[in-house]
């Protein structure tokens, strides 16, 4: 099953490679991984999207906790959470595609952030599956370039991951 794991770690050089090294050394999947500093500059927050059986996810959480630089780990799937990912996609917008691309962008509540004679650059946020659905819905031949950030997640309501 797909899991989103959130963690706080010391904002130190090498911390990211400890995490990515752990996943490759133990053969765990990484679907996506995002990391950025938090409001406390000594801490970084990472979101890892992974998949595996319950036993594997349990081991992943334990192994992450074991890394000295990691302060806290939370499996967002243990409760209710919100997931968002940002995608920027450049699509063909010549005469053949222009109207359709505008329409699909509206349907998926994206925004056109750059326009040229032959292309639109569109920004879409949502769960990873929503972004997948957008890609499925448009003509593959129209896609010029895609960049995705990987998912970020946060617990709902009182679920807070903080030191």
């Amino acid at each position, binding site marked *: 099953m797909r899991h989103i794991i959130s963690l706080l*770690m*010391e904002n130190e*050089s*090498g911390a990211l*490679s*400890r995490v990515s*090294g752990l996943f490759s*050394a133990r053969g765990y999947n990484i679907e996506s991984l995002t990391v950025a500093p938090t409001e406390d500059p000594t801490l970084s927050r990472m979101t890892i999207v992974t998949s595996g059986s319950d*036993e594997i996810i*349990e*081991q992943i959480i*334990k*192994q992450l*906790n*074991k890394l*000295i*630089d*990691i*302060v806290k780990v939370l499996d967002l799937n243990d409760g209710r959470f919100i997931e968002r990912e940002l995608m920027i996609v450049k699509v063909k917008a010549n005469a053949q595609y222009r109207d359709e691309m505008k329409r699909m962008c509206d349907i998926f509540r994206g925004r056109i952030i750059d326009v040229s004679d032959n292309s639109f650059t569109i920004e879409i946020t949502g769960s990873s599956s929503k972004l997948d659905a957008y890609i499925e819905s448009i003509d593959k031949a129209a896609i010029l370039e895609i960049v995705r950030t990987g998912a970020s997640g946060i617990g709902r309501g009182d679920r807070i991951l903080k*030191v």
Partner: protein
Amino acid sequence: MSSNHISGAEIVIRCLHEEKVKFVFGYPGGAVLNIYDAVFQQNKFKHVLVRHEQAAVHAADAYSRSTGKVGVALVTSGPGATNAVTGIATAYMDSIPMVIISGQVPTYAIGQDAFQECDTVGITRPCVKHNFLVKDIKDIASTMKKAFYVASSGRPGPVLVDIPKDITAEKYEFSYPKSVHLRSYNPIIKGHSGQIKKALSLLLNAKRPMIYSGGGVVLGDASSQLSKFVRTIGSPITSTLMGLGGFPASDKQFLGMLGMHGTYEANMAMQECDVLLAVGARFDDRVIGNPEHFLSKPKTIIHIDIDPSSISKRVKIDIPIVGDVVSILTELNDLLSKENMKQNAYLKHWFKDIDQWRSMNCLSFKNDKKLIKPQFVIQTLHKVTKGDAFITSDVGQHQMWAAQYYPFDKPRRWINSGGLGTMGVGLPYAMGAQLAHPDAQVACVTGEASIQMCIQELSTCKQFHLPIKIINLNNRYMGMVRQWQEFFYGNRYAESYMEALPDFVKLAESYGHVGMKIEKPSDVEPALKEAFSNKLKERLVFMDFITDQKENVFPMVPNGKGLSEMITAEDL
């Protein structure tokens, strides 16, 4: 600059003094010249110059294994660090507390492919508990403090501190932190009381209780608490290769080692028990074999371990207890003392089964008049040293025979590479153990293949007058490889034959040691007695035993099979 400013190199040395380090094992080189200059100007610890960095780390590792203190190694950048990697990985797999200090090229040269530069922190990351690159002289003292703390607390392990050369030349005032706190690292000490009570009640009511103890008991210095507990509840106990000595082998309740080359009774009892208590052990592949087969006989498993990630890693655990093994066993013993202990009526039946398995006499072997049996050498070694020596081993058949035929009654006496299985550790391990225990008998049980992997250390032994006795079980084969080839590869002995062997007697003599070649079974005991006699008390003796080439290690659980699917000597 104020007058109390000292160099980074001197700060490193002062940190080692603060940690009361007695021995540093190392090898100098460009990036650590400043540190070596500071080593030269102090006499609070002894520096042991090895002949290869791998041996420095192994020797520091054995110093730790035999004393419980943190072992310290010092190596230079680039090849110094890469040579140390095998030693570090070996210590990591067996959770040995160590601090390795490596030199690095100057900060301004990092990333420039400088002479003797390598990404030491990157290379060692997967085989250390933690590592640091110190980029500012202000951080040396606090980093060293953290390194010793992380290495020795929780589940111990090696920690590497990489220090660029320019940092060791700069000057700064020295102040060693009194305590250390890491918000991201708080090992759990006390076990969950509810779980401990549940575990005890399960064990007391079990029909076929079994205890399986591992290296964690030795590392955690918990053998007296374990022995008390096991004797009170009266159950049988087995031990992993790493746990030998954690419970006295001469005790009736002890069934011998379990696992791939464990005893018949230990493996059968592991398979047939209904409640299993694992203490500081990790259910690895060489110990329980195939996990599905292991669980095919239903059992309730209790697991005490300091590392949560060891729990339910290969086998699902029913009652996990995370914490320090001494603290948890003490709590169990306290509960037991309040308990109105009646002899568990089922135990009698259980031991009847066990005695039946014991009667297989699975470690029996036939002595020969002409050929020296390796098992006989180990048995005689046990007799001559009165079972009280520090025994180090390399990796292979001789390692298993040492574990099987040299029963250990005390912890920290059996020193070998269990997890990584590193050939070549035996001699440097013996160096570390002998330096830590100068008056003790130290024997290195090895084979003609393993010993040649760190043979250069005979020179270190000469320099430091280490009276190690090397028990070389010379069968002209990489014995364990040959055994697998015999069993599983149709007797095709691919590259496992040792040709062009040196004359070990002359080799030992050329290093200034005593060499002996023993070819007849009747000479085994007299030779060992001579080697351990007062006459040779101060000398390293290299004993080259020419043994039976075809001898195999039994019992054996073939790879991927279950514990009760052993091959014994009788089967063949």
